[in-house]
C-alpha cells in the first residue's frame, strides 16, 4: 500500500466517524459524556418521575380496585379496572353507616385539636417567653413523654376507661368512658401535646417584647396580652400546630382501634368502618378500597392547601431539640 493510499484511508476513517452505525443509546451516551450537565439533568428527571410514580401509583390502583364490580375482582389489572362500577362509592354508605364513622373521626380530631391548641398555647407561652427556675426540667419532662410508645400507657388507661365511675353516670349510661369519644381524644390530646408545645414555643418566642409591654401598659391582663397580642401575631404557627394535630389524630390507629367496640353508635372512628368491610362471610375488597378513597380525601385536601404549614411544622418540631 502506498503512502498516498494510507492517508486516503485515514481521511476516509475520519469522515466516516460521525456516520458510524450507532444505536440511539450509544448516540445518547456520547452526548452525555461530552456534556455532563445534560447527564445530571436527565438523572434528575428520571429520579423525579420515579418518586412521583412510586408515591402516587398506589392511590391510582386503589381507585381501580374500587371501580371493579365485586364479581370481577380477580381481574383487576395493574393499570386498568376489571370492569366499571362507580356504585361502590354509594354502597359504602348504604351497607354500613360509613358517614357516621367519618363524622366520629372528624369530631374526635376537631375536639382534640381545640384542646391541644388551647393547652399548648398556655404552655408554649411559658416555655417561649417566661424565665423561671424549673423551666428546663419541665421542658425535658414534656419531651420525655413523646418518646414512650403508646403501649406503655395502655394497660392502666384501658383499666381506667373501663371502670364504672359514679360521678360520670349522668353523662354516660354505665359510667365508664369506654365506647365514648372521650376515651380516644383525651389520651390523644395528651400524647400529641408535646409536638404542638414545641411548635408554638418557637413562634411565640419570636414576637418582640415591646409589643407585649405596650399592651400591658394599655391595661390588658397577662392572659389578655397572650390571647390578644401573642396568639394573633403567631397565627401561622397556630395554624401549623392545628393542621398537624388534626392530621395525626385523624390518622391515629392505636387508641382509635382499642378504645371502642367498633360499632358506629359507640363513636368508633373511621378506621373501624374500613375494617368492617372485611365482613364475616365475604371480604368486600372493592368497598374497602372505595371507603379508603373517601376517608383519605379530607387529609389529601388538607395537605394540598396547607403544605407549607406541614413542612414548617415537621421541621420545627424536630429541629427544636
Amino acid at each position, binding site marked *: 500500500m502506498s503512502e498516498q493510499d494510507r492517508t486516503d484511508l485515514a481521511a476516509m476513517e475520519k469522515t466516516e466517524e460521525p456516520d458510524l452505525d450507532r444505536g440511539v443509546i450509544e448516540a445518547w451516551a456520547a452526548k452525555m459524556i461530552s456534556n455532563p450537565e445534560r447527564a445530571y439533568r436527565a438523572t*434528575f428527571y428520571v429520579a*423525579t418521575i420515579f*418518586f412521583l410514580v*412510586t*408515591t*402516587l401509583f*398506589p*392511590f391510582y390502583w*386503589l381507585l381501580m*380496585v374500587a371501580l371493579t364490580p365485586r364479581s370481577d*375482582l380477580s381481574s*383487576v*389489572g395493574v393499570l386498568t379496572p376489571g370492569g366499571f362500577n362507580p356504585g361502590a362509592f354509594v354502597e359504602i354508605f348504604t351497607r354500613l353507616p360509613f358517614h357516621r364513622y367519618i363524622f366520629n373521626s372528624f369530631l374526635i380530631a376537631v375536639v382534640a385539636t381545640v*384542646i391541644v391548641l388551647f*393547652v*399548648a398555647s*398556655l404552655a408554649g407561652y*411559658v416555655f417561649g417567653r417566661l*424565665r*423561671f*427556675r424549673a423551666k428546663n426540667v*419541665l421542658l425535658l419532662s*414534656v419531651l420525655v*413523654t413523646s*418518646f*414512650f*410508645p403508646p*403501649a*406503655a*400507657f*395502655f*394497660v*392502666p388507661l*384501658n383499666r381506667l376507661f373501663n371502670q364504672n365511675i359514679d360521678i360520670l353516670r349522668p353523662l354516660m349510661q354505665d359510667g365508664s368512658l369506654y365506647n365514648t369519644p372521650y376515651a380516644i381524644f*383525651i*389520651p390523644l390530646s*395528651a*400524647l400529641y*401535646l408535646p409536638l404542638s408545645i414545641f411548635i408554638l414555643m418557637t413562634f411565640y418566642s419570636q414576637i418582640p417584647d415591646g409589643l407585649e409591654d405596650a399592651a400591658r401598659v394599655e391595661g390588658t*391582663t*397577662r*392572659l389578655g396580652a397572650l390571647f390578644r397580642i401573642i396568639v394573633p401575631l403567631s397565627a401561622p404557627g397556630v395554624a401549623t400546630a392545628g393542621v398537624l394535630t388534626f392530621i395525626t389524630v385523624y*390518622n*391515629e*390507629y392505636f387508641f382509635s382501634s382499642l378504645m371502642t367496640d367498633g360499632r358506629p353508635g359507640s363513636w368508633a372512628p*373511621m*378506621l373501624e368502618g*374500613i375494617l368492617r368491610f372485611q365482613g364475616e362471610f365475604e371480604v368486600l*375488597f372493592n368497598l374497602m*378500597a372505595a371507603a*379508603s378513597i373517601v376517608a*383519605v380525601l379530607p*387529609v389529601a385536601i*388538607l395537605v394540598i392547601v396547607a*403544605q407549607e404549614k406541614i*413542612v414548617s411544622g*415537621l421541621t420545627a418540631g*424536630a*429541629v427544636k*431539640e
Partner: protein
Amino acid sequence: MRPLNWLETQSEATFAYVLLAPAFLLLAVIAFYPLLRTFSFSLLADQTAAPTPFGEFIGFDNYAALLTGEALLPQQFFDPSFATPILQQALFVTLAFAILSVLFETLIGFGQAIVLDQDFYGRRWVRVAIIIPYAIPIVIQAMIFYLMFNPTVGFAAEFMQGIGVFGNNPLTNATDSFIIVLVADIWKTSAFMALLILAGLQSIDRGLYDVARVSGASPWQQFKYITLPLIAPALLVAMLFRTMDAMRIYGLIDATAGCQTVPSMSCLVITALQNTRRWATASAVAFLTAVVIGVLVLLYLVSLRDTEAGVT
C-alpha cells in the same frame, strides 16, 4: 377579687406554673401516672380466671419468665418450631423493622430531598405528591398494601411469587408479611426523612460550593466534604425520631398481616391483653418496650453529641 386579678399580682414564676397546670395535668393523667402504674402492674402475678386480672406481688418474675421464654403467651408463627422464646422473636422483629426501615427511609429520603432541593417548574406539586403518603391514615396505608398483596385482587402477590420470592399467601407467612410491612412503612414515611434532610440542605451556605468548585472538587467530593458533615446533626435527629416511631409499630401490622403473623413488641402487649388476659405480663412487655426505646434514644444522643463536637 376575681381570679384574673389575682393572677396579676403574682410573681412571674407563679404565673408560669398556673399556665403550665393544664398541660401537666393532662400529661400526668395520660402519661406519667400510667407509666408508673404499668411498672407496678408488671410486678404482680397474672390472674386469668379471677374477676380482677392481677394477683399477688411477685417482683421481677414476669420479666424473668419473659426473658427465659417461659411466659405463657399466645403462640406466634414467626418461628414455626416454637423453639425461640416469644419475647426474643418480638424483639428481633421490632429491632429488625426499626433498623431496616430507618436505613431505607434515610436513603430514599435523601434522594427525594436532593430532587426537592433543585429549582424547577412545578416543584410545589412534586413536593405535595411526595408528602401525601406521609399524611394518610395508617389504616388506609395498610389497606393499600393488604389489597396489593392479597392473592385474589392484588397484582403484587402474583409478581413476587413469579420471581420466586414470596409463597402462596404472603399475608399469612411471617417473612413475606414482614417484607410487606417494611415496604409499606418505607412508602409512607420516607417523606418525613426527605423534609428534614431538605431543611438541613437548605441551611447550607451556597458559597461553600462555589469555593469547592473553584478549588476543583468533584460533585462527589462536594457531597462528602461539605453536604454530609453539615447535615449530619439534622440527619441524626430525623433518624432518632423515625427510630422511636418505628419501634412502636402496631397499627400497620394489625390491619395487614395481623399481630400473630408479625409479632412486634406493641403487638405482643395487645395480644397478651386481649387473647389471654395476662395483664401483668402485658405490662412487663410494655415496660420492656419503653426500656429498649430508651436505650436506643441514649445511643443516638451520644452520637449526636459526638458529631456536634466534631463540627466545632
